[in-house]
């Protein structure tokens, strides 16, 4: 599984001097040091440098990696058309492809994965992604919505399943396989929406349950040795009481690796789709997660404000549209699944939204291994990615978090375990969940660290007591050794490479 070499800065040698380096993958936590760059990669110290950049007093980390985002493809296009113009000074909830790259780069991010592209939409998504400035990019393929793949999951041999999945991934130039609501789109298209509440109900017309679909897909991906494990958006997204099916999902892989996407949206107590009974179901889930190192997750934190929800889970989108009465767009693809898009506003005074906010943070603060967690807001579903610095402050600044907690709905304040959690993420832990762990989980051996041979994707921050200020505007961002952003300004818009399984 090879990764394309970065578009290099050229043959000149650059040295970044005297930065305070946080490189958790190499066990470096705030050590002052130099970084040598040549041909777009980090190299051993050289006899001389063509260019020196003094980073004295600045914090240096690998470039950020967004393991789960939605930035391109047909449903993102619909979101762009549906959104209201952004408030003054705020980015649109669904920016143009150029603005997406510019904003990510200015934030210190250098790699992004679009987490849900169908086989049919992959060529169009790649045309769009080709115009994404700066960032290296990859797509996760919704292979489990592809009709032929589903048929083979139902009755094919494991070899046949692996062959088909591999074929789709290669043809679509994808990096990984995502499953969005296993089997859900079959129920959706068959008009059996209420029948898909657990992993045991056979899919309409097929001798295949959601549980079997997950296990067989995970097996195929292990057999294919894809760089990223099966990326799972499980059933019952956003529904009260869904923690049970999330736990069942965690137990479905029989020890094979799997990644649980936007776990926050799948961690609620309550029952019978009754929002009034909403609560946190994190405790039993995190307990299982902590004991099972083969599992990883991204959180899909919500942050308060207006955004656009978009998903390959047509059932979930319809449910949310029905509950909120919001505008709703959807599209059913031929021999594929469906998707749904709708605007959403998260309010701290709302019982459900306050719970969602608290549940996400509870996950971050009670999961004990940051190497298996990726920071995400499931952009734009939970919040815009430009809100990451606020989220990082919530994790690293307990008084700030407590202050925000005190503004929540009183039921949440009374009942959420979050109020008792005092943990604060260190800079090193923040570096893990935003770059080192996502790189490791994605199977990007050349990214997420600053060791010799790594891509020279480097972000330089000014230290600040207010972490949200520190992370909102890096002083400098280097991509493959080139200075691409400085103090929020884009300096070089050269597109990155496509990360695709060969």
């Amino acid at each position, binding site marked *: 599984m090879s990764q394309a070499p970065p578009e290099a800065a050229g043959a000149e040698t650059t040295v970044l001097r005297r930065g305070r380096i946080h490189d958790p993958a190499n066990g470096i936590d705030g050590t002052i040091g130099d970084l040598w760059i040549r041909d777009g990669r980090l190299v051993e110290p050289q006899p001389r440098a063509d260019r020196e950049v003094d980073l004295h007093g600045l914090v240096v980390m690998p470039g950020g990696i967004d393991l789960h985002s939605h930035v391109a493809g047909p449903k993102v296009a619909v979101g762009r058309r549906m*959104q209201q113009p952004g408030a003054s000074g705020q980015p649109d909830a669904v920016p143009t492809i150029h603005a997406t790259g510019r904003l990510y780069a200015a934030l210190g991010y250098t790699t992004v994965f679009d987490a849900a592209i169908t086989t049919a939409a992959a060529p169009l998504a790649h045309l769009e992604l080709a115009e994404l400035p700066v960032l290296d990019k990859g797509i996760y393929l919704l292979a489990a919505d592809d009709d032929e793949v589903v048929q083979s999951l139902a009755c094919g041999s494991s070899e046949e399943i692996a062959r088909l999945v591999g074929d789709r991934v290669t043809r679509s130039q994808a990096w990984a396989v995502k499953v969005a609501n296993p089997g859900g789109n079959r129920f959706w298209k068959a008009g059996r929406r209420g029948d898909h509440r657990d992993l045991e109900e056979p899919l309409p017309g097929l001798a295949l349950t959601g549980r079997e679909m997950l296990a067989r897909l995970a097996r195929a991906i292990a057999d294919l040795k894809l760089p990223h494990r099966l990326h799972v958006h499980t059933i019952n997204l956003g529904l009260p009481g869904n923690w049970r099916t999330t736990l069942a999902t965690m137990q479905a892989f029989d020890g094979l690796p799997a990644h649980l996407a936007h776990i926050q949206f799948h961690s609620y107590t309550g029952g019978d789709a009754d929002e009034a009974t909403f609560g946190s179901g994190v405790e039993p889930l995190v307990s299982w997660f902590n004991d099972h190192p083969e599992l990883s997750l991204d959180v899909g934190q919500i942050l308060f404000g207006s955004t656009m929800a978009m998903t390959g889970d047509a059932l979930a989108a319809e449910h949310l549209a029905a509950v909120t009465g919001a505008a709703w767009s959807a599209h059913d693809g*031929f021999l594929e699944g469906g998707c749904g898009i709708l605007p959403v506003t998260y309010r701290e005074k709302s019982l459900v939204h306050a719970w969602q906010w608290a549940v996400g943070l509870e996950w971050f603060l009670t999961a004990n291994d940051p190497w298996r967690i990726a920071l995400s807001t499931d952009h734009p579903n939970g919040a815009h990615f430009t809100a990451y610095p606020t989220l990082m402050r919530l994790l690293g600044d307990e008084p700030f978090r407590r202050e925000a907690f005190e503004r929540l709905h009183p039921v949440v304040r009374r009942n959420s375990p979050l109020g008792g959690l005092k943990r604060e993420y260190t800079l090193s832990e923040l570096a893990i969940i935003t770059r080192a762990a996502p790189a490791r989980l994605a199977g990007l051996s050349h990214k997420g660290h600053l060791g010799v041979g790594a891509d020279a994707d480097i972000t330089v921050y000014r230290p600040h007591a207010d972490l949200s200020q520190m992370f909102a505007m890096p002083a400098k961002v280097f991509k493959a050794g080139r200075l691409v952003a400085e103090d929020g300004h884009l300096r070089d818009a050269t597109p990155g490479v496509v990360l695709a399984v060969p």
Partner: protein
Amino acid sequence: MSGLATVSSEQVVCTGCPLVCDDILLRVGGDAATGPQPVFDQACAVGTAWLANAWAGQEAADAVVDGAAVDAASAIQLAAGRLAGCRRVLVTGCQDDTLETVTAAADVAEQLGAAFDAGSAEAVQICGPVAARIGRVTADFEELRDRSDCVLIWCTDPAGSHPRFIERFLTPSCAQGERKVFVIGADPAAAAAQGWTHVPIPQDQAAEAAVTLQAMLHEQVEGSTPLTSERRPASWHLLEPQLAVVAEACREAGCVGVVSGGCPADATGMTAVAVSRLVITLAHRKPAFEVPLSAGASSAGPATAAAVSTWRYGAAGAVAVADRDGGTLAPAEADAGRLIERSEVDGVVVVGQPPEAVLKAMAGFDGLVIAVGGEAGPQRPPQVWIGTAATALASDGQLLRDDGRLVRLQAVRASARPAAATVLAAIRAHLPSRETP
């Protein structure tokens, strides 16, 4: 076999209407007397004429500048020079072009800081932006074919705008077997031709009919109380009798498909909005979707241009400045026709054949017109026209059907002319550079 031309066959793509049929088989036969004769299996009359014209068409001049034939390279250089001298430029057209061509046209617009109006349905009809705000539940054409056992054709004529639509997507049986089709509108001819049920609704009551049916479907919901007369739409008493059979069919159906069109008479967009709301209401209850067909398109249609414009500028057309960081859709301000009529631009780049409204506006325009591909407009010939390979003669591009499905072009023959994308890229290369990023 002596005297007969070699018979060959290959699959080609028809770009003669927004259906972009990719199942056409070109067979070339004939003999010494007749010469090669093409036959386009599966093609409709419109497609056959379109493809035959492309197959046999002459490509006389490479380019024309101020009425005189010149080579393309000279015309490109001259076009770039004249554009660079303009105060404000508009790039428009792109109605029947590939993703690659529209992208190249947008590049030119960005280089010039120009207005960009891809002329999409959303830009030229107020219904687009409005519908985007309320949402729209849609599906691929094949989903209609395979799943919908009840189809409502809402005040549009697919046979007119998309000649093979009925044959390809409505005549085949669906998974449930028999399909009920209702033609809602004033003209009974389409229904009679197919043996479908005609529901007589005057064109000017198309929106009211959708609102009325939505109210009737609301009353179908188990446990709901009938709407009081005050809450029923005003048109209820007039339209409910005709629509009763439709409401009943929707109730019984496993999956309802609504075929709608950008109705030219729907100037306010009310029909489009009412139909979208009707479908959304249905779709909250059972499988249902809308299949909107672009109206009045004589060629491949606007979906391709809308896609590029959306990822580049966040809007499906009509942006005042082609700015990749985001443009605001401003159909009242940046519509191509208006910009030209008001002389807000002094230079226009027309890519392909422009919409009728743009052609009309150009009749009184005394600024610079650069045409890339298409034909010289009847009212206002351009100063610079550069010939490009028509989409029917292109094999290296991709188009989007009305439903967003990607189709890779397969040409009926090779063209001696360059692709429009190549010409646009060359013009851009000759323009003064702008600061980047």
